[in-house]
């Protein structure tokens, strides 16, 4: 390549980041506004109107309970809209194109236009298909991802008061159980379409989901085992780094051995290790970190397969199965499938962030942490307090949300990069990879982590 062929593409990159920033601002602003209104404003208004009335208190509490649901319901469609746009623009960046840039400023509203288009398209029922199942399939595909996301809300907002209610003690298990349901929707849709390509797509999806669920669950369970909790909030909180060396910033994440490395460094600095211990301890710490990185890798691979993304998008396999299970779908039902796919991508990324990348914790202590955000949030809160309204958001939650979003989208962009690079597996190779490589590896890691944990 001649040197002149590498001028920097700052213009397009800048547009992409601007677009992302504005969209994300809109999304999370809207979500937070909705949550604030349902969870704080309305209950307060009710309580102000009927002070000292136990019934009003009950009603206010009942409304507060709806907050997570409302938040997720607002969040998922607009977030998927942004993700489609980000994927298209991101892929365009990787493939020296411009991507959608016509609708709205710089293609800002492209996916909104697409969504409107899909809503107004005709719903076609395939001849000989099972209409009831055909209609139910997208819903079954979509609904669990909505409900599955709820416990994560608590984790990424540092267990904010509004979301405490959804923090289950078996949080991660709940997410896993929910994320295993969508495959039913795919099989159902494939079967109800009365189309052989769809049927094959549905069957492939089932085979794939069942076989990749095992390494995925094993990877998560191993990590839960390492940190000793199934509670997502707990797991996220444990990874919160401090500026103390024993749990320094990002080194305290599960990704780096659940705090093994900073712990070792701390011991080393304090001179508590002697002779051979310096080496052996270092070795075991690094081994644990390595195991955790592998676990995270297994999780991401399995998650890619679970949500049917390249290189595991066999159920859709356009070149073979036309469009797989959603060949016959059109209009709003197709839109739901489409929406759910991106939502699933977002949710698996969030799970990875909560499980391995420290949830809402800042990677460097003191960098854009709760204090920084508190200084932003305080004026707003004061203004609201003067108007007699509840505070909008505290610095702790804001910092948590910011970093969780940042990390999640970093993973999403990585998925986009992978999508831009890799070809697709063949079904037998895929199952082979799952059963013969990933499952043994995850079992070995489970064993290894059991022992290494004691040795560190």
């Amino acid at each position: 390549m001649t040197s002149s062929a590498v001028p920097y593409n700052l213009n397009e990159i800048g547009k992409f980041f601007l677009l992302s920033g504005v969209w994300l601002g809109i999304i999370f602003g809207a979500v937070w506004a909705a949550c604030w209104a349902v969870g704080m404003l309305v209950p307060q208004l009710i309580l102000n109107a009927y002070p000292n009335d136990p019934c009003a208190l009950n009603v206010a509490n009942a409304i507060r309970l709806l907050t997570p649901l409302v938040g997720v319901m607002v969040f998922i469609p607009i977030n998927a809209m942004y993700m489609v746009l980000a994927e298209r623009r991101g892929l365009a960046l990787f493939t020296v194109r411009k991507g959608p840039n016509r609708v709205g400023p710089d293609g800002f509203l492209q996916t909104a236009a697409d969504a409107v288009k899909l809503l107004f398209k005709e719903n076609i029922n395939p001849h000989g298909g099972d209409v009831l199942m055909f209609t139910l399939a997208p819903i079954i595909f979509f609904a669990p991802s909505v409900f599955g996301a709820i416990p994560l809300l608590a984790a990424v907002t540092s267990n904010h008061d509004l979301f405490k209610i959804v923090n289950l003690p078996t949080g991660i298990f709940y997410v896993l159980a929910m994320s295993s349901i969508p495959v039913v929707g795919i099989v159902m849709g494939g079967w109800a379409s009365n189309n052989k390509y769809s049927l094959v797509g549905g069957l492939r999806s089932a085979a794939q989901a069942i076989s990749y669920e095992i390494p995925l669950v094993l990877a998560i369970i191993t990590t839960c085992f390492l940190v000793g909790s199934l509670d997502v909030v707990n797991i996220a909180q444990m990874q919160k780094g401090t500026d103390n060396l024993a749990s320094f910033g990002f080194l305290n994440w599960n990704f780096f051995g659940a705090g093994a490395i900073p712990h070792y460094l701390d011991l080393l600095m304090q001179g508590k290790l002697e002779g051979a211990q310096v080496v052996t301890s270092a070795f075991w710490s690094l081994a644990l970190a390595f195991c955790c990185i592998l676990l995270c890798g297994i999780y991401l691979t399995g998650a890619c397969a679970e949500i049917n993304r390249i290189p595991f998008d066999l159920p859709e396999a356009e070149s073979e199965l036309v469009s797989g299970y959603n060949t016959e779908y059109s209009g709003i039902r197709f839109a739901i499938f489409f929406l759910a796919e991106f939502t699933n991508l977002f949710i698996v990324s969030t799970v990875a962030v909560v499980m391995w990348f420290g949830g809402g914790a800042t990677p460097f202590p003191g960098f854009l942490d709760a204090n920084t955000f508190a200084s932003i949030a305080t004026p707003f809160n004061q203004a609201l307090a003067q108007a007699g309204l509840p505070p909008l958001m505290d610095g702790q939650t804001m910092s948590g949300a910011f970093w969780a979003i940042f990390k999640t989208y970093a993973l999403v962009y990585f998925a986009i990069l992978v999508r831009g690079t890799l070809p697709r597996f063949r079904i037998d190779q895929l199952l082979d990879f799952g059963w013969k490589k990933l499952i043994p590896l995850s079992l070995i890691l489970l064993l290894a982590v059991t022992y290494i944990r004691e040795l560190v």
Partner: protein
Amino acid sequence: MFALVGRSIESLYQVARGLKTVFKHTVRPPITKNFPDDMPDLPGHFRGRLALAVNPQTSEHLCISCLQCERVCPDKCIQITSHKSPETNKPELIEFKIDHGLCMFCGLCTEVCPTSCIINTNDFEMADYTRESLVYDLKRLTLSQDESAHYFAKKELPMPKPKPPKPAAKPAAPAAAAKPAEDKPEAKPEVKAEAKPQDLPAAPAPESPKKEEQ
């Protein structure tokens, strides 16, 4: 076992190499253009919509109704109606129709045209709602004087010899323009041969077969 680990590492390295190469493309500028905003810079020889040129200097219609293009067209998409002018006893153009729905833009008609009248323009945006509207008549086919001048310059065609003054010609009305150029079919090639060395840098499209032949 070690072989497996080695293979896995090798695979991961190769995947990472691919990812890196793709990621590197982020900093390359896009090659796509915003089409209706930046029109492509098409070369003069581009074979787009067919059109009839007029003399860039005098705005006379160049067609002499020799019917060569109609005969050579592989798709038979050109239809010329002409009659013998009672005054000059020469063919006179009445109607010229090109069905662009049938045309395959092979450019043979422009190669055989003795007066460089029928040319391929750089226009390619011809989408329309009906097939009928793809049939262009003389009025839609004929280019303005400016456009003709533009294409003559761009395609580096020899300037046509201005017509001798004629008795009953209406130069502004191309449809009815009588073609009193008695000697045109014979004279044109010579005209070109003279014209070329002086003002034309490249080989003119329709003439090149003849020119190179010698």
